[in-house]
């Protein structure tokens, strides 16, 4: 157990390091000079001074060494534009994005458990067809379009919810809805098909044969055995969710991490972009480790293969 955690952690660290390195090099080769973006009217000498001040005149590898050194000391540098430390900017935008992620995950999981169970236990019926069709429909709608439609429906027309920026809890409603719709669609399909798969197994019939009720068989057999595929797909959907967040925040001008990231890239705000990339990859690595360990814990056959039992 501990061994595999350590192994995964080390691998995760390596992956993060690679991401940091590759993105560092790529970022510095993006055409467009922060000094020119920051001070377009300055003389070449002044711009050179800005570059020197930010350490941009050094060779890329030297810059990288300095960056990693500072990073390990907990210093992610200053934003070039917001005249604030990267840590502070992240501190403001992370909670906003976290709210979106947590709420949309929660709502989606609950909704898709209900819908997936209905569809999976009535597979082949009209009800199942209906749920599955609606799921495909919402899965086929691009996030940004759904967001824009929500803006038109609830913002522009009805004026019920704020559609731009962040001004309290109400501002989160529409972005969360935009994230929930496709996520619920995907998870509903996964839950439905893994329930059908579990129900087709012989041990469900064996459970019925020893007098277990339908409800009992659902919780103890069908649902329980569907947990692993569902967890795996939640894990893979998290990566997708992060991507969606960037988009949805862009449409709603919601000042979370994604929105900050986009603006930072457009403005060549290297330090900020770099920090956000690190954050994303750490998040992804951690989620993957948790999912890996979780599925191993849940599946005795994997535990046996790992030599735990």
């Amino acid at each position: 157990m501990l061994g595999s955690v350590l192994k995964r952690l080390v691998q995760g660290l390596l992956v993060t390091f690679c991401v940091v390195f590759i993105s560092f090099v790529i970022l510095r080769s993006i055409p467009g000079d922060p000094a020119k973006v920051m001070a377009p009217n300055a003389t070449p000498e002044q711009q050179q001074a800005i570059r020197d001040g930010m350490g941009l005149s050094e060779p890329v590898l030297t810059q990288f060494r300095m960056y990693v050194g500072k990073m390990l000391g907990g210093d992610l540098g200053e934003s070039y534009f917001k005249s604030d430390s990267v840590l502070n900017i992240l501190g403001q935008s992370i909670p906003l994005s976290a709210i979106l992620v947590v709420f949309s995950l929660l709502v989606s999981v609950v909704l898709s458990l209900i819908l997936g169970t209905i569809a999976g236990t009535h597979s082949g019926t009209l009800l199942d067809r209906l749920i599955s069709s609606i799921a495909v429909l919402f899965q086929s709608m691009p996030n940004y379009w759904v967001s824009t439609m929500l803006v038109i429906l609830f913002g522009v027309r009805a004026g019920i919810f704020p559609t731009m920026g962040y001004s309290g809890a109400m501002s989160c409603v529409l972005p969360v809805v935009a994230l929930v719709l496709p996520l619920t669609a995907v998870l509903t399909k996964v839950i439905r098909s893994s329930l059908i798969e579990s129900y087709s197994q012989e041990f469900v019939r064996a459970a019925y044969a020893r007098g277990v009720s339908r409800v009992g068989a659902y919780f103890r057999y069908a649902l329980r055995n569907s947990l692993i595929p569902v967890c795996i797909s939640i894990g893979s959907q998290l990566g997708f969710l992060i991507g969606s967040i960037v988009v949805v925040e862009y449409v709603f001008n919601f000042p979370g991490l994604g929105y900050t990231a986009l603006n930072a890239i457009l403005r060549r705000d290297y330090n900020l972009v770099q920090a956000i990339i690190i954050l994303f990859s750490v998040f992804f690595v951690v989620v993957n480790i948790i999912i890996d360990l979780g599925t191993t814990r849940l599946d005795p056959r994997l535990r046996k293969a790992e030599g735990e039992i």
Partner: protein
Amino acid sequence: MGQNPLTRLVGKISANILLTAGIIIVAGCLAIAIAAPLLAPHDLSPNPALRLLKPFREASFPLGTDAIGRDILTRLMYGIRTSVLIAFSSVVLAALIGTVVGVLSGFSNPGLFDTILMRLTDVQMGFPFVVLAMIALTLFNPDKTSIAIVLSLSLWPVYARMVRSSVMLQKDSDYIAAARLMGAGRWRIYTRYVGRNLLPAMLPLFPLDIAGMVINESLLSYMSIGIKPPEISIGNIMADARGYIASDSWYILLPGVLLVIMVLGLNFIGDSLQTLLDPSLRQKRRG
């Protein structure tokens, strides 16, 4: 579980209806994509006299005109052409890269090569697509080729992993061993045995992934980092329309609905293929 003959019947037909509907939609889109220059009713020159003409008002401009008076139907046709081209080529590219990496990785499985390749897919998947695309598209000029490459960058790890796990399942199987004993060479095993068994698993993925890439391409254009005017994509038509959501919300509705229909068609095909090709969903139990 509550399956009566009626609903079973409905299930059977609707699987085929969906497949048929999907094929019709996709065939239609393909036809438009190929023949857009022939089918388009107008050219793409602006006409200031016809700014933001509402749809279904005038027979010669059935879907209305945009902010500088260009026929929206014509623009949508060219948009489909771009979307289909980019999405299709990016999926083909991703599948090719993914298959090669997956096969190599799977056959070298417990080994450094495999570990490196798989961690590489980790890195790839760890990058949120939009951020990756933004960085890449500021590095390279966002034309069709570079967008297709960027899109396939986000997709190839999926194929690589699928191929790899399939190879790993198969390479120790008896029929591969038997083929080896019969003197089948390495390439023959790769192509004839492993490849043949991969195809049923990959086939439904193509339409599903093309759908995903259509969405992603339009997303990039919508965020103004993808296809740049004067090239037309459904995404940048919507980006145009975004300025008018308060006054003329029909404008953004049209390309969106078109996009959803196109993606739905592709998803119908993918889902139906998945059901049709999955033996575990087809099996009948008897005593």
